[in-house]
């Protein structure tokens, strides 16, 4: 049967061929994973990324404020000390599209990133580490968002 994962694999092969033959100049360095960024939940995102079931791990850290006064700018950090990390994902569960950012880790950078995210409402935020051996580890933290003028 032609399932989604197979299709993705095949299109990756085709893309690789195109890149090799120089037919693919625009997207040669990283194909934007549209499906993953449109997915609504953690499970859907991981499916779109082709990753397996996530396991909660204390080796992955997510950092952020307990209470964010301004949902438009919520500073988040995601890191892990484990070796062999392939990708770090940052997700906000209750956003219209859960996936915020994907960092492709190489040997030359630490698996430690900080960025700022938009949050529509109070929600759990996730840091997900996809390892080179296929393991998927995550950590979560609740961030409360105070909207409006009262400031908590």
């Amino acid at each position, binding site marked *: 049967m032609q399932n989604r994962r197979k299709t993705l694999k095949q299109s990756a092969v085709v893309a690789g061929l195109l890149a090799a033959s120089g037919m693919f100049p625009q997207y040669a360095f990283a194909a*934007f994973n549209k499906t993953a960024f449109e997915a609504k939940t953690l499970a859907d995102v991981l499916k779109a990324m082709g990753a397996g079931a996530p396991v909660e791990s204390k080796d992955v850290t997510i950092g952020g404020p307990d209470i964010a006064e301004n949902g438009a700018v919520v500073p988040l950090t995601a890191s892990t000390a484990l070796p062999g990390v392939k990708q770090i994902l940052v997700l*906000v569960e209750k956003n*219209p599209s859960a996936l915020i950012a994907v960092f492709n880790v190489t040997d*030359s950078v*630490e698996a430690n990133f900080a960025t*700022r995210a938009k949050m529509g409402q109070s929600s759990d935020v996730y840091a997900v580490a996809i390892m080179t051996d296929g393991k998927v580890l995550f950590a979560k933290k609740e961030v409360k968002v105070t909207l409006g003028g009262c400031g908590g």
Partner: protein
Amino acid sequence: MSDPMRIRAQVAGDRATVRVLMAHEMESGQRKDAAGKLVPAWHIAEVTATHNGKPVLTAEWGPGVSKNPFLQFVVKGAKAGDKIAITWKDNKGDTRTDEATAS
């Protein structure tokens, strides 16, 4: 063309902490304008960082990253004087590259 990025690379030991502030609207695609029409999404989709010309990090971003995005990462094996360059590309195909020297 958009405004330049602000990049700072600080060396401590053999690693450099790179902080980047990009100037970008990061429209989420959820907001409506005065006429009630959805404002189409306009966000940075791909970010690439190079260290002395060697790619060290690529990132894919969705519209959920804040306006004028901030990014911090740590480059291993860096020393003062190294060049750190950041390139972003948004979903409209606009792109910008800026370079900074680690200190």
